[in-house]
């Protein structure tokens, strides 16, 4: 089963964990065949939001959420179950600076 581990960090902790640590973590997961994808993100200041309403595309700067922590990156993992996913999430280095949200991936229902 796939789990998306979303890494949240406060702005001033964005680079608190050295990149090489995150890379080592991702490589470790990949070597064990558990990593489907992982990327870090640029800061929220670089974000753009796109919406389509009545066929018209609206583009806005942001979002700049009120919460202090923002999405800083993700790991898409292949885990046996939630316990395994939590176990792996606890190994993601930014877990000690910010937080990791573990979300099960849903299968698209295309048949009906």
């Amino acid at each position, binding site marked *: *089963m796939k789990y998306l581990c979303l890494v949240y960090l406060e702005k001033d902790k964005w680079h608190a964990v050295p990149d090489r640590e995150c890379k080592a973590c991702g490589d470790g997961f990949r070597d064990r065949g558990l990593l489907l994808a992982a990327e870090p993100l640029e800061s929220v200041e670089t974000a753009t939001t796109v919406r389509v309403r009545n066929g018209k595309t609206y583009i806005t700067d942001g979002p700049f959420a009120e919460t202090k922590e923002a999405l800083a990156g993700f790991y898409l993992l292949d885990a046996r179950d*939630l*316990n395994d996913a*939590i176990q792996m999430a606890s190994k993601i280095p930014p877990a000690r600076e910010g937080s990791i949200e573990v979300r*099960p991936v849903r299968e698209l229902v295309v048949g009906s």
Partner: protein
Amino acid sequence: MAADSIHQAIEGIYEAESRRVLATLIRVLGDFDKAEEALHDAFRAALEQWPREGVPGNPRAWLVSAGRFKAIDAVRRLKRFDALDEVGEKADVAFIDTAAWADEESVEDDQLRLIFTCCHPALAPEAQVALTLREVCGLTTEEIAHAFLTPAPTLAQRIVRAKGKIRDAKIPYEVPARADLADRLDAVLRVIYLVFNEGYAASSGRQVTRHDLSTEAIRLGRLLAELLPAPEVQGLLALLLLQDSRRAARMSAEGDVVLLEDQERGLWNQEQIVEGTRLVEQALSSGSAGPYAIQAAIAAVHAEAATAAATDWDEIVGLYDLLVAMSPSPVVELNRAVAVAMRDGPAAGLAIIDALLARGELKDYRLAHAARAELCRRLGRTADARASFERALKLAKQEPERRLIERRLAELQP
């Protein structure tokens, strides 16, 4: 056997086995809702067949197989496609192979699996409690809602959400691995203690004790101690038994709170005290006693004192020292201060409580102010006692507790 006595036998088997059968069916079917439905169908089948054919030799195995068969049959009926013939064949084979599904060892494991799954830390604490009472104890949603003074639809929603998360996020149905066991067991013990406390001292409302939840918590503690006899499990069960042993003495006939020192000790339940004390000794002698065992040891020291005056306060202060070192919290320090006051006099206790209050964490805790008031009263500092009782009264929510504080206030010399 006459039909009536068969029905009675089935009722007895339901009482004794339905939770075990459910725990196994959840493993076999991999789904809480399907398992509940299958359990229901299995007992309906028993009601039809057993009067005709007699009660089977191993009713539990029969029920598990019947439940499993009915669940697979339901899927087959739903789909009515050839592709499912394969599943059907497997089902028939498994129906013959009954014993393997329900031997003693795997049934015990299933019960532990169920407990650990219901108390999984990825579920909200109130959902853990609700799910445990429903699935492990077999209480109805309405009974749980009533006990927690929560509207039944809210509680039902909580249970549905928790089951949804178990299914969708794939919380595994398993006993945690050794490395995680201590942490996960803590969560289970916390749930049991929460259930007990909810029964022992409701957080608001008129009645202070709610019998059923305390009994349910003790039953759970007993079950867990049987399945997993770890020192902290024994410690918790001992604590529950020793606290519960005072149930008959802690309320007057008028429904007023009676403090420990004023309780009629003859009303204490000796059977629970004996069992609780034995469990404390076991837990302590293991060398790895935790906070529950230490709290139980404190309760056991109270229990062995024939009168309040005969209490071994030195021993109790020593145990609180251990507890403060093991799991520091301002509330534990407050309890220690009260014990120090009993051993060394009210001034010594008051000094600790004032220092605690000055730290700020307990400034809205009613019992801190009530304890301070009591010590001031004993020292003859009536004005200080009055001010602290009034502060405690402002913070107290339970009616019996409010009446106790009001009584203490009225008794103060002007």
